[in-house]
């Protein structure tokens, strides 16, 4: 019984950290730009496909693919923000959401055109494949690796936002756009940069997903984006700390749900999301506005 619970916890942790990798970029973009980005799932998908292609081009070097793939997606993110999103910040919510939704449709079909509509099996990472025994049962090494990467990304983002000059400017622009531009911050450029960084984070999630999910499919972004929404909402929209803890909760909840009440596993996730929105719209860990 104990080893079963430990394994469910580990599975939950790895799922949670994996969702966190995707939700971090979504949350950052919402926190600074105020746009809920449906296309973030597409960045995730593009990241996975770019990484896959690059790593197979360069002799199956996973790390090189992971380095270069997200940079390509960064360029895509630049185009989306600079030439489209920038012109709808002043519009009502439906227009902003649907603009990013239009990119979901576009990227889904582009991926189908370039890589085909079928799913692609992904390679394993040398050194991180296989599984090791934990308390008498086998657990995939790569999932342990993801459990390690999640907190590293969290620490990195915390350091970037709290300890650097860049982070101070980002925080200034997100708390008061007008005041920041009055003291000389080039807010539009900053927004583009933050959007690109968010896209890079989403693509990193996708790249790391290549060996984790095992299969690349053109619709892979759409399922993860809803999970990332749930996590971002539970943690409080725009709060990175909240998103990290929210991802842990959702990961563990879905792992235990799948194990013990598989029928209501998805239901539980969404009832938690609705409950948080109703009673603590600022998120479980956010401060009241």
């Amino acid at each position: 019984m104990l080893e079963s619970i430990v394994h469910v916890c580990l599975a939950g942790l790895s799922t949670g950290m994996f969702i966190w990798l995707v939700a971090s970029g979504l949350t950052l973009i919402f926190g600074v730009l105020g746009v809920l980005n449906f296309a973030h799932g597409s960045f995730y998908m593009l990241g996975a496909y770019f990484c896959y292609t690059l790593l197979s081009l360069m002799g199956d070097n996973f790390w090189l693919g992971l380095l270069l793939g997200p940079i390509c997606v960064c360029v895509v993110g630049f185009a989306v923000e600079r030439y489209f999103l920038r012109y709808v910040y002043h519009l009502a919510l439906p227009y902003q959401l649907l603009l990013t939704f239009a990119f979901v449709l576009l990227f889904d079909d582009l991926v189908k055109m370039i890589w085909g509509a079928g799913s692609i099996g992904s390679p394993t990472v040398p050194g991180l494949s296989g599984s090791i025994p934990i308390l008498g049962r086998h657990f995939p090494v790569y999932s342990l690796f993801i459990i390690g990467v999640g907190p590293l990304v969290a620490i990195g983002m915390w350091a970037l936002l709290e300890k650097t000059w860049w982070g101070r400017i980002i925080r200034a622009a997100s708390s008061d756009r007008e005041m920041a531009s009055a003291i000389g911050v080039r807010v539009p450029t900053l927004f583009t940069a933050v959007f690109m960084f968010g896209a890079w984070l989403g693509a990193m999630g996708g790249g790391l997903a290549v060996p984790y999910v095992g299969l690349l499919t053109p619709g892979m972004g759409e399922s993860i984006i809803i999970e990332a929404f749930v996590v971002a909402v539970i943690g409080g929209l725009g709060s990175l700390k909240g998103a990290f803890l929210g991802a842990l909760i959702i990961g563990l909840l879905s792992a235990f749900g799948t194990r013990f009440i598989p029928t209501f596993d998805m239901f539980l996730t969404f009832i938690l999301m609705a409950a948080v929105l109703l009673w603590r719209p600022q998120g479980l860990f956010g401060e009241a506005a």
Partner: protein
Amino acid sequence: MKRFWIYVSIALILAGLVAIGFFGGRFVVYLSMRVLILSIFALGYNLLLGRTGLLSFGHAAFYAGGAYGLGLFSIHVATNPLLGIIAGVALACMMALIIGFFCVRHTEIYFAMLTLAFGMMVFSLIWNLRDVTGGDDGLVGIVRAPISLGIATIPISKATHYYFFVLFCFLLTVALVYRIRRSPFGLVLAGVRENDRRVEFAGLSVRNYRLAAFVISGSFAGLAGTLGALLESNTNPFSAHWSHSAEPILVSLIGGIQTFAGPIVGSALFIVLREVIERFTQNWMLWFGLILLAIIMGLRGGVVGGLAQLFRSEKCPAPPSGGAR
């Protein structure tokens, strides 16, 4: 003079719709029914989006509520479609009342996320309660039994007969939505969109008006769902998925969310364009994404709004955004 041309064009469109029923081929009739059903869905939806300024990502749940309500009723209770439709719409209405009660506590992004959460709850129930809903198979074998009205029975099993029934429901929806928009109630909804605080100061409960708009639009979604289930003679669990909620939003946007005819024109364009594009390429989503981009970047009044502006002699720009304050 202008009014005269409006009447003429309405009469022509009506004649065309009737002519499709009499002379249209099987495929044209089927496609027209899908346009009409999507129009019912979008017309009701746009009462919420265009009129009240609320963006819901959960209306697919009410569509599915209608479809599964009718399906379960016709399988377990009686096959009379009219009773089935009443059961389906009643179920959708109840669901909208319960879900709406919670959702209207928020607006903007929080409202959108709440409706998404509730909609996905309904989807997960339909997906997982296999014994009741058939899980991923959906409910199959829904028959289009004749409508018995006591004094007369109307057969709808043939596609053309069913077409006229769908057309009747569509015209009923158009009339109802038109009346609602023109009524004092509809004007208050527009007031809620433009400035909810003023509506509050006028002594009206903004929350109740939002809830009423939510329930009405949910009921029309349910009606569309029942008709869709009868058309396909099965139900699809993905009709409750959030991506299906995007459909009425998209067609309203294409047609123009601030116009009455927008959702109808948008539905026709959406379904016909999809068929045409799929004839030539596999990639209709790509083209659709491009159309959507063009509308958001350049033609925010939608197709109907753009045409209206073109024909208007004095230039009077349409409000660029719904729900903006």
